[in-house]
């Protein structure tokens, strides 16, 4: 791997981003992808104490729904065995939403306010206390910060000549990002079909060595930048641990 690698954003939103990383090996790119899915810890509800539940769903079902609600996880504030207590108290007729969850810690809030937990009818009530803990996606999918994390090779497209005038044109589908000279173009711009962009020309497509286009989405517990840097940190920490373990 090169000593330096650079990152270039192609698309950047609050919870999703597409970016190009140059100067990494396929093994390292895959390591980052796997770390984003399984090794970045996030907070999620792990234990629920039901004080009252007269709704139509069982305690276990409601506990599972609460566990899946993403909680905002500030970086470097919590350790693996810290516990954040949250509570929920809703009386029917009403719908209990994730936004009704009251947190004991200001930094930890439901990332999504409008997830319905349970619809309560007249006279029904839900009152509970819950403990959120920090853990990784390896442990349970509710702790998985990265949702639909993937990468593709950056592809270089060059024109190599004219297409025959009466030739049959088959679609040439590429999904991801292509490089034309020095310019990066998202294949969405031409509906993923190179024959739309080069109607009369023959093109040659090849993978650009050590250049990967990541597309990352998060569940809202942290930003894409944070998820990515923490994934790299976790890889770094494990590499250091291995080095430590094998050195005499």
């Amino acid at each position: 791997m090169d000593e330096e690698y650079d990152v270039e954003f192609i698309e950047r939103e609050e919870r999703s981003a597409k970016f190009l990383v140059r100067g990494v090996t396929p093994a390292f790119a895959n390591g980052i992808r796997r770390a984003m899915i399984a090794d970045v810890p996030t907070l999620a509800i792990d234990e629920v104490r039901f004080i009252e539940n007269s709704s139509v769903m069982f305690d276990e079902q409601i506990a599972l729904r609460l566990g899946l609600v993403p909680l905002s996880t500030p970086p470097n504030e919590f350790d693996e065995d810290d516990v954040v207590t949250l509570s929920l108290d809703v009386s029917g007729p009403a719908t209990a939403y994730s936004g009704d969850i009251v947190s004991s810690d200001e930094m930890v809030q439901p990332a999504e306010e409008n997830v319905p937990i349970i619809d309560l009818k007249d006279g029904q009530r839900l009152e509970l206390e819950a403990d959120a803990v920090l853990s990784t996606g390896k442990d349970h999918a509710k702790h998985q910060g990265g949702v639909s994390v993937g990468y593709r090779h950056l592809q270089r497209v060059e024109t190599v000549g004219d297409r025959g005038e009466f030739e049959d044109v088959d679609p040439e589908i590429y999904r991801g990002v292509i490089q034309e000279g020095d310019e990066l173009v998202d294949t969405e711009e031409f509906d993923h079909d190179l024959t739309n962009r080069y109607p009369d020309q023959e093109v040659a497509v090849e993978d650009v060595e050590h250049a990967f286009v990541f597309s990352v989405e998060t569940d809202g517990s942290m930003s894409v930048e944070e998820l990515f840097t923490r994934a790299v940190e976790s890889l770094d920490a494990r590499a250091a641990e291995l080095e430590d373990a094998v050195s005499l």
Partner: protein
Amino acid sequence: MMVPVRCFTCGNVVGEHWEEFKARSREGDEDPEMVLDELGIDRYCCRRMLVSHKDLVDIVSPYQ
């Protein structure tokens, strides 16, 4: 019973969009495809979570 909080396949949070989706496409007369596009639910795994869902709380609650 209630909408799943997350997509079974990819883990994206979809529950938050259910009420708007229901109001516009089930109770309203908009095309579900257009509503899902506008809500930003792009993948077909997440789309099927809302398209195939039916609320059962109102049906079940009289039998408590």
